[in-house]
């Protein structure tokens, strides 16, 4: 909202002035400008007139029976066809036949529900009363009754002779009975079947599953390889290091387990044996070799069933 640098007041300033939203100082300045500027004064008069007219607009109200129409589930005049409204206007001129004031016609759905007996007793009674008095709805009811009657009288159609024999020729009665009467299976057999379903069903899916499970060992072997290739580290030293770590781990397990197993016969002998094994460099080396073999196997399986088939598919596609 600015009054400067334009020589005239902007429309938003004039609107704010008309609504009394300007600060006292800005209003004083604006009014001072209006006293001197005929153009702004004229525009201001236009805004003032518009505001006045807007304030004088009256509230619009729905018709008096609007609420009743909204609240009525069955009686909706709007659903009456134009022809019926025309009939109504005609009937209004006939004494004794005109529907009573305030009466509305039954909806299409209401008539259908009535004919199907889907209305509760109270609604049904009101509908019947209306139907007795209202010629329009009475006529509609007859039309609907005729349609219901036609639909209900539609015949069932028969297939060609021999249909049952044709079906029975394709129904293995004994096999169906065998399946239907198969004994309830135990939870063991269900669990077995479930596990069988969960297991990979093809060489490729086995390869994928194997690859997923072997992936950690691939990472591990890569880490080991990164360490081994270091010029200051030999494989033997690494094996010794792992052996020491394993020995430390063994000692730790030993310490924790000792309290729990105190007094158990043969425990000391077992722990001594395990410690000896962990401290043996050859055992650590054998472990690494096994890990390596496992990873190589998984790498080969991944290549054989995932990478290689993709390449060969592309090759065949080119050939074709």
């Amino acid at each position, binding site marked *: 909202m600015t009054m400067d640098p334009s020589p005239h007041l902007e429309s938003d300033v004039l609107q704010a002035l008309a609504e009394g939203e300007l600060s006292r100082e800005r209003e004083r300045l604006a009014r001072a400008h209006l006293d001197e500027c005929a153009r702004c004064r004229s525009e201001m008069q236009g805004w003032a007139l518009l505001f006045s007219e807007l304030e004088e607009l009256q509230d619009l109200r729905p018709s008096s029976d609007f609420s009743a129409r909204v609240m009525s589930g069955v009686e909706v005049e709007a659903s009456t066809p134009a022809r019926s409204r025309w009939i109504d206007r005609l009937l209004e001129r006939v004494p004794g036949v005109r529907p009573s004031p305030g009466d509305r016609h039954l909806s299409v759905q209401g008539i259908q529900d009535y004919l199907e007996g889907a209305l509760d007793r109270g609604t049904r009674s009101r509908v019947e009363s209306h139907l007795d008095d209202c010629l329009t709805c009475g006529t509609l009811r007859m039309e609907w009754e005729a349609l219901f009657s036609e639909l209900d009288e*539609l015949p069932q159609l028969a*297939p060609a002779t021999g249909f049952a024999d044709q079906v029975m020729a394709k*129904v293995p009665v004994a096999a169906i009975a065998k399946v239907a009467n198969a004994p309830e299976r135990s939870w063991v057999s269900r669990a077995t079947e479930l596990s069988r379903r969960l297991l990979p069903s093809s060489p490729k899916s086995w390869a994928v599953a194997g690859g997923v499970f072997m992936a950690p060992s691939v990472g591990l072997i890569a880490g080991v390889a990164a360490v081994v290739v270091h010029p200051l580290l030999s494989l033997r030293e690494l094996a010794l290091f792992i052996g020491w770590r394993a020995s430390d781990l063994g000692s730790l397990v030993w310490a924790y387990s000792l309290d729990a197993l105190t007094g158990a016969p043969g425990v000391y002998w077992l722990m001594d044996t395990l410690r000896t094994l962990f401290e043996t460099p050859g055992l650590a080396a054998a472990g690494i070799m096994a890990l390596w073999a496992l990873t190589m196997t998984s790498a080969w399986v991944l290549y054989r069933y995932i990478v290689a088939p993709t390449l060969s598919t592309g090759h065949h596609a080119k050939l074709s």
Partner: protein
Amino acid sequence: MDHSTLEDREVAALACKGRESAFRELLARYERPVFSLVYRMVRDRTLAEDLAQEAFIKAFHALGSYKPEYKFSSWLFKIANNLTIDHLRKKKLDTISIDGSPHASGEEETSRTRFILPDTGETPDEYTENRELGGQIEDAIARLRPEYRTAILLRHVEGHSYDEVADIMELPLGTVKTYIHRGRSELKELLSEVAA
């Protein structure tokens, strides 16, 4: 053995035990109703017999999974209706548009969801006569969209309750009521057009 006095579920139980006569009893009870529904849906006798046959074979193979607390006729009609609807959907490429979805909220959606009637290149009269389904009411039913047609036929020709129709069509009860009301209104309109 005479199974005519037994209830459907008892006959189905006997069929499960391998009694061929029980299978035949179920066929005798439902071959006409099932065929009628399918025939009025696809309006081709040969095709209707194939579909009805497929429905029975499928139902009989699945008898072991049929639960006696469920109404047998509803279970059987559900299988037949699903097969028929699947067939109509597969055939929808060879179709012409007539109308839009009853739930369409705008012109665009109405246009997108136009109902489809098989385009056989016949006039409506030829279509009706050639398919042995004569009469104005049959012709009007043929012009309804499939979901309205199924609901109307199950309700009026087969005499199922609204709940059963909802169960067979696997639709909410309110939707089925709407389908039947609108279907009948369309029928009334179509018939009055013919009369005029």
